[in-house]
């Protein structure tokens, strides 16, 4: 198992070089429209969004509440199938394959790690929280599980705080620790894409900075989609940023360029500079 991980890492190292050119499209979204059937009064939560997310980049999505950010994320791993009211049109390509034609949605979801705004530590031990996904994949060997748990907790900057009490409940950790636990859990899926939906909402600034440092390293191994309410966080972390407003994607561009004022729509600038509304 160790060798396997090392081999995988080596493979990813080589991919990083090619990713510098930013040509591998990880996720491609075409004309995505989302509406919530009985409550929307015909208004779409998201309309005609088309964008590409490249491999090994941190793709930021900013925008005020009700912009459709979370709805957008839900469609990426087909979590919309759990919400009967949610109507989704348009196609989404994952590794250039249409996800709506997938036979195995569970495999897709396991390749996409999701971190929610409010940390959800499952009511299992810290160890089991992180070992759950490997177990679901069928890994039973105790030694491999131990390694995965330690590795993921270390990467999520939580290992040192919990290594002596892996048997205590994950759901009773403090907010910041729980959020790092959910990141560790997402990493235990060995995901290709990591989605973070306003992860820092319930986390103190120091922990936020630690997680941000972790993300900067993780980007060499996976693609990260970061939805955030903190414009400065998007600036600090992301390579490219999309601005959502009222269910529309107003702007997509290089983060640096956006923050330097190269915008198509002045509204974006207003939002970035906090002159909004």
């Amino acid at each position, binding site marked *: 198992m160790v060798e396997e991980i090392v081999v995988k890492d080596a493979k990813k190292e080589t991919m990083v070089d090619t990713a510098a050119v930013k040509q591998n499209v990880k996720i491609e979204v075409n004309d995505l429209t989302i509406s919530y059937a009985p409550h929307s009064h015909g208004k779409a939560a998201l309309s005609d969004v088309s964008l590409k997310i490249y491999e090994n980049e941190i793709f930021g999505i900013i925008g005020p509440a009700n912009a459709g950010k979370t709805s957008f994320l839900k469609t990426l*791993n087909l*979590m919309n199938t759990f919400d*009967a009211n949610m109507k989704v049109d348009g196609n989404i390509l994952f590794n250039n394959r249409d996800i709506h034609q997938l036979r195995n949605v569970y495999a897709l979801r396991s390749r996409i*790690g999701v971190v929610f705004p409010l940390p959800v530590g499952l*009511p299992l031990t810290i160890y089991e929280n992180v070992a759950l996904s490997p177990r679901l994949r069928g890994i039973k060997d105790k030694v491999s599980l131990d390694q995965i748990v330690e590795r993921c907790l270390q990467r999520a900057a939580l290992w040192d705080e919990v290594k002596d009490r892996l048997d205590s409940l994950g759901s009773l950790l403090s907010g910041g620790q729980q959020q790092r636990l*959910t990141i560790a859990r997402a990493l235990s899926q060995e995901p290709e894409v990591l989605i973070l939906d306003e992860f820092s909402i319930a986390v103190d600034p120091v922990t936020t900075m630690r997680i941000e440092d972790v993300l900067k390293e993780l980007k060499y191994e996976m693609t990260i989609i970061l939805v955030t309410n903190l414009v400065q966080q998007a600036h600090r972390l992301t390579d490219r940023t999309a601005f959502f407003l009222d269910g529309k994607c107003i702007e997509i561009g290089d983060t640096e360029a956006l923050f330097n004022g190269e915008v198509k729509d002045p509204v974006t600038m207003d939002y970035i500079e906090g002159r909004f509304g």
Partner: protein
Amino acid sequence: MLKEPQSAEFLFAISALNVKNKKIQKLYSILFLMMTLLLILPVLVILGTLIVKGGSMISIDFLFTDPINGMTEGGVFPALLGTVWLVSLALFISVPLGIAAAIYLSEYASDNWFTRIINLAIINLAGVPSIVHALFGLGAFVMFFGFGTSILAASLTLAIMTLPVVIVSTRESLQAVPHAFREACWNMGATRWQTIRRVVLPNAVSGILTGVILEVSRTTGETAPIMFTGAAFFLPFLPQGIFDQTMALSLHLFVVSTQVPNVPDALPYAVALVLIGMVLLMNSLSIALRMYLRGQKKW
């Protein structure tokens, strides 16, 4: 007109209104306390009467010997054993069925006309009077299926009675597990069953168990449903299998209090005491279990 700025002294002074509010508050708390005490009263009176009038007859012998002399002497062993038989078999049937149905309704079913009809049926089933269940059991299990008056027929009737309660209490325990846990699990690529098996059920099990144990105590006391379907007035032998009739404590109590002449006064009280003792034992078990499991709060 503006008021004078109030001095700090004002905050520490007690006004007439404060005094009045305090009095009213005290009055209400005493009132509610009295109401609560009133609730305990019947329990104390019932238990007290039973213990005073029948307590002297209770002994190990009373529990473990057969009734003799036309049920005017001896113990209650066949009835006690019969009740254990009936209740265990009834729950053995209704608990797995009920839990499975509750899992389906809580975790799999979407909200449509079909599930709404099922829910309506469950509520109505819970409201059916026990004598109607008894007649249904007589028609269906005793006659149609040909089980005869037997432990099986009586247990099946009891099972149908307890089923809706098991379903409702299980479903509530499942619903008490926060939805966010399920979503987190689904997001990891877990199937519904994996989520139920690893996250939902382990955290609902305390509530489910509590509900089941409470059902045991309720079923123990049921008389009407077993009267026509499997419980006997008097049997000189113990049941050998599920197709035999059996005596049962609840029916035995009815019989010795109303149907048999020359019963010593203390006997019905003693039988009632054994019955209520069983129920209280089950209830305290359930409360203890709930307290133990609640102590291990998980979120």
